[in-house]
């Protein structure tokens, strides 16, 4: 095992986390809990496979994933903002809905309850598994460059200022003329689109959709957001940290040095530590999860 292999594997594992966490930060900073990131990813993964299958081009799959993730997020936004439903309840419902919908359409379109046929992906024939293959995959670039871009949008643009304002103090934001509801809708739908890209990476890299293929990655991304204290760059670093831990576990598992159970716990243990305020204070956006009471 050399350093290049280690870094390449860390990056491969990190890309879906980065995309989901990047989207999730936008939603959470606008005051809407990103509990349904897992669902957006699963929906995105499925739409990417369908798009790529019918168009024969992975790019169409990527567009489909953006649409699919965005639609699920819109449903979440309508329920939580328009109808003031409890965000935690709706968030979980969206995840279950994504599981059910993908399975239903998998059956309808491909006549299988388990996986889709092989679809075109981005990989270059014979490019191996190192950085060359990674560099050829645009979703890797979007994942890596996306985090600083989201940080820039959040801290350096008027839209970002509005997002942060409606997440901290919506009443104050409204009093200076910020269209609170519209800003929130945009932030949530954007989060679904970006997280959908994370799902697209999974299914296009695998060249097929398989039932439940996100396997909890959306929750790891949510853990990264919290561990990164709702800051895009820190959340991105947390994603890389979690991915590195997973790589380490994969590399060391053969030697039985660390029980794999412990490594699987790392993201969640770190999240609890962050929330307990042991490493600096993790303060969520003040209005997070409170769209019901406004």
């Amino acid at each position, binding site marked *: 095992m050399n350093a290049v292999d280690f870094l390449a594997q860390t990056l491969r594992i990190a890309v879906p986390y980065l995309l989901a966490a990047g989207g999730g930060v936008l939603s959470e900073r606008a005051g809407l809990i990103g509990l349904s990131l897992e669902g957006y990813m699963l929906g995105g993964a499925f739409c990417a496979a369908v798009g790529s299958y019918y168009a024969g081009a992975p790019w169409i799959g990527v567009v489909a994933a953006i649409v699919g993730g965005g639609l699920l997020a819109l449903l979440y936004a309508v329920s939580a903002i328009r109808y003031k439903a409890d965000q935690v309840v709706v968030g979980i419902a969206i995840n279950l809905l994504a599981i059910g919908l993908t399975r239903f359409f998998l059956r309808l379109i491909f006549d299988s309850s388990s996986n889709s046929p092989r679809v075109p992906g981005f990989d270059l024939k014979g490019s191996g598994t190192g950085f060359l293959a990674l560099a050829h995959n645009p979703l890797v670039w979007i994942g890596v460059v996306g985090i600083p871009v989201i940080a820039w949008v959040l801290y350096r643009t008027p839209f970002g200022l509005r997002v942060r304002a409606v997440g901290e103090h919506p009443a104050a934001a409204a009093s200076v003329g910020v269209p609170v509801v519209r800003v929130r809708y945009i932030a949530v739908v954007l989060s679904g689109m970006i997280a959908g890209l994370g799902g697209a990476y999974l299914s296009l890299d*695998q060249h097929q959709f398989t039932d439940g293929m996100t*396997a909890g990655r959306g929750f790891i991304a949510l853990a990264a957001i919290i561990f990164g204290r709702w800051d895009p760059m820190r959340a991105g670093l947390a994603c890389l940290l979690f991915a590195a831990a997973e790589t380490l576990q*994969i590399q060391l598992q053969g030697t039985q040095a660390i029980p794999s159970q412990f490594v699987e716990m790392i993201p969640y243990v770190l999240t609890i530590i962050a929330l307990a305020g042991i490493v600096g204070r993790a303060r969520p956006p003040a209005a997070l999860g409170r769209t019901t009471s406004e």
Partner: protein
Amino acid sequence: MRKLLILVAVLTAVHGALLFVHPSGAAVPPTGDAVDVGIVFDLGGRGDKSFNDGAYIGAERAEKELGVRVRFVEPGESADREAGLRLLAAEGMDLVIGVGFIFTDDLTQLAREYPNTRFAGVDYSVAQDKDGKVIQPPPNLAALKFREEQGSFLVGAIAALVGKSKKVGFVGGMNFPLIHKFEMGYAAGVKSVCPDCEVISQYAGVTPEAFRNPGKGKELALSQYQQGVNVIFHASGSTGLGVFEAARQTGKLAIGVDADQFKEAPGYVLTSMVKRVDNAVFDAIKRVKERHFAGGIYQYGLAEDGVGYVYDANNAKMIPAAVRTRVEALKADIVAGRINVPSTK
């Protein structure tokens, strides 16, 4: 207010009227002579190209050859599993089959509640008491078990003989005793033909999700291939699709599981360790049809043609004749009891 009252009254009337309507075509009650069989699939469901499909094929054959009627239930999430079995049992099916180890507790419970219904569990995991003695399933429950370690032993020998690199790989799904059977048999098979070979064994996780994580499977396989492994055997459900993807990318080989998985990655699937779930399901239905069904533990091994490895026109050119001869000799040894394959860690 008056509108509301009228609405309630109308709804009540409709509700009352519907009580007297018998839906046509739905749920024909089981009749006395024909044998009715209900099957509940595991996660993955139909189209998994694995044991669910195997059970389906066996049941279809029973429908054609034995003239039985089969109903399939495909549960959504885990909570519906028990409900699916219960529904079939309550409808008075002659035989209710649960496909997958996950049904073990539900089947045991229902077999006690419905002593006149017959049950069968594919991969039913038999419990042991404190002294290590096997706890027999209820008398109306047939545990259909496979000697996966025997089939895994043979593909282990193939992996070592074809791989030629002193290192062979194993990727398991969830880290628990059923999958350890595959791993231990495989490792023993490797050692039987190559005592100084190293077996790198890895698992995708510790929860049932580990059977549905192709992304993880791919990364595990890539790291093994990078360490010099040339052949990987997976026992990990759709996580194994990631192993095949890694084989495609690196140009190396993988071994499928449960069903013939050649089509998942033609040219990269050396062989598959097949579990003849279809035979086991067909047998169980046949025993009910012929009225000599009995509960207990049924073991399907190499001798019963319950497990095996794939050798056909697709992969014959990947397995040299000498390897084939050697593996067939090992198979004869196992069937004759000259080799005892370990199944636990």
